[in-house]
């Protein structure tokens, strides 16, 4: 299906970095790793949870996590086996997704960095500031080249949402460093 809904690009597209089709995708071992971690964590971290009275709760709080943990480990094993056997995942498509070009992980890394900065600074600087920086920063990384305009849009959005939540919804977003100004 995905083959016949892929749009025909208007005119020749410069597919310099077109990537070859996958025959085996060993990077799926990342998923195997995630599953193993989740599985072991589900089992081990609930191991010492004290069961209630056996009479009133025969199954107890440990059985369900243990079951999920074991299944995660089994799924990890199956995925590892299928991966080695050449099972290739079907990547997610979308309107703005072009799977024919090489993935640009540098952009993703920059976005994550900006986002992490937002997480770290939001309590201190307040949403009104970090939200604006988040918008302008991510827009820049994604290819916008009008930083001043982006900052203005970001500020309007963040200050606007601050007041919308405060006045409209009664949710006081912490003002951070701007306490007393906003």
């Amino acid at each position: 299906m995905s083959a016949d809904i892929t749009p025909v690009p208007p005119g020749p597209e410069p597919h310099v970095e077109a990537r070859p089709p996958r025959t085996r995708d060993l990077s799926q071992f990342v998923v195997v790793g995630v599953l193993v971690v989740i599985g072991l964590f589900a089992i081990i971290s609930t191991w010492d949870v004290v069961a209630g009275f056996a009479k009133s709760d025969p199954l107890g709080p440990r059985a369900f996590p243990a079951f999920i943990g074991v299944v995660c480990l089994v799924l990890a094993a199956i995925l590892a086996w299928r991966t080695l056997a050449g099972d290739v995942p079907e990547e997610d498509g979308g309107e703005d997704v072009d799977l024919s070009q090489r993935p640009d992980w540098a952009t993703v890394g920059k976005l994550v960095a900006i986002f992490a900065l937002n997480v770290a600074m939001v309590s201190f600087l307040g949403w009104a500031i970090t939200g604006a920086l988040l918008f302008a920063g991510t827009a820049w990384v994604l290819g916008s080249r009008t930083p001043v305009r982006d900052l203005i849009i970001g500020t309007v959005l963040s200050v606007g949402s601050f007041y919308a939540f405060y006045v409209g919804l009664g949710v006081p977003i912490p003002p951070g460093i701007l306490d007393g100004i906003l």
Partner: protein
Amino acid sequence: MDAWNGLMEGFATALTPMNLLFACIGVLLGTAVGVLPGIGPAMTVALLLPITYNVEPASAFIMFAGIYYGGMYGGSTTSILLNTPGESSSVITALEGNKMAKAGRAAQALATAAIGSFIAGSIGTALIVAFAPTIATAAVQLGAPSYFAIMVLALVAVTAVLGASKLRGFISLFIGLAIGLVGADLLTGQNRMTMGIPLLSDGIDIVVVAVAIFAIGEALWVAAHLRRRPLEVIPVGRPWMGKEDWKRSWMPWLRGTAYGFPFGALPAGGAELPTFLSYVTEKKLTKHPEEFGKGAIEGVAGPEAANNASAAGTLVPMLSLGLPTNATAAIMLAAMAGYGIQPGPALFEENGDLVWALIASLFIGNALLLILNLPLAPVWAKLLRTPRPYLYAGILFFASLGAYAVNLQWFDLLLLLVLGLLGLLMRRFGLPVLPMIIAVILGPRLEYQLRQALQLSSGEWSTLWSEPVAVVVYVFLALLFIVPMVLKRVRGAHPVADADVTSGSDSDQKVGS
């Protein structure tokens, strides 16, 4: 309260000026996000959950209903004008819809989609009125074993029926179940998987999970693969249809509705299968077979109706059993929980006024969609040209805001980032999103029902199949696995037919995005 009186009272609630305004906002917002790539109705409802702090439940659900139907409609606009469907349910619409648009018949394609959606949505909503209260009344009698069975069915069905790879479906499912475990145990109050972090005792908020997986995961994934050259948007004027188009559309609308509603109402639901079946049927029945593949109006009318009818059908298990089978329904249930409303069969009795207001607003939302969207189509087409840096920066901004507003803790933003990276991983490795979201919601309830059933039977496992409904559900579950295997064997002799079907039932799991 019988259904008719309930419905009339629902209309009385929904038709107040304030609630009509909420319905209008919902419909417009829903269509806008349905049109825009990268976000969908599930995420929009998730982001709007903070309004539940300060808005009447009825008004909030009236708006959510508008977003739900509006999102469906917006998705079809995108697939017709852009030829890259954002929702898996509009994949089929794109087949003929975009061909029609390219042939200069975009206005007719949009019109048949809009009117078909309206008809299917109205019939579907009427069927909700007919079925949901009855099912709820019957379901009140069900005990924990039956509930457990129905939830297992819903989880397995969403995982195994939809999606290209069952293995990856189950991986998503169990990651979701594990996320649902985090927090205090419902029965003993003991912390599980919290790593000693007190903020995790309340569990990971479903808003944070949904927004992270849908919005952050999607934005990061798109950032990695952003098209260098934006897609061509086909310009369109006001949608309209000629007499011949009406003649060719009305039967497909009705047939599509007939396919869509039952599939939506089943726990195995989804819109992929009914839209595909509708397409195949119309292709077979049409008097213009030569037009199929070049832009046949039947190929838009049928699947679009099926899509909307299935959306309506999804609300039957949600309202009568508290069972979500798609992402938007899951988030709406989370909103109910936010109001302290217990989803489940008692809903009609305990919160009848709210449920009927919601159902009435589905009718109203449907009508509003038709009235507003026909003249607004050129605006939606313009929306598709939103500069991508702004679109995705905006998604990241509003996602952060929505997650931050839940508890006003930076910690939630950290969770958002971590789970967003998980969402990125899932898209990269073909893990479907829907089973995970449903598992996060249903997992804790599944465990609760299981333990409650075993409590009542003092540990006797046979209690699990002690109720007739439970037995029926398990048989159905078994069939779900056996039938495809048999079909596979039968089709083994006809590899051509097999290829045709698998190519059509492709369902990339972007149901909610």
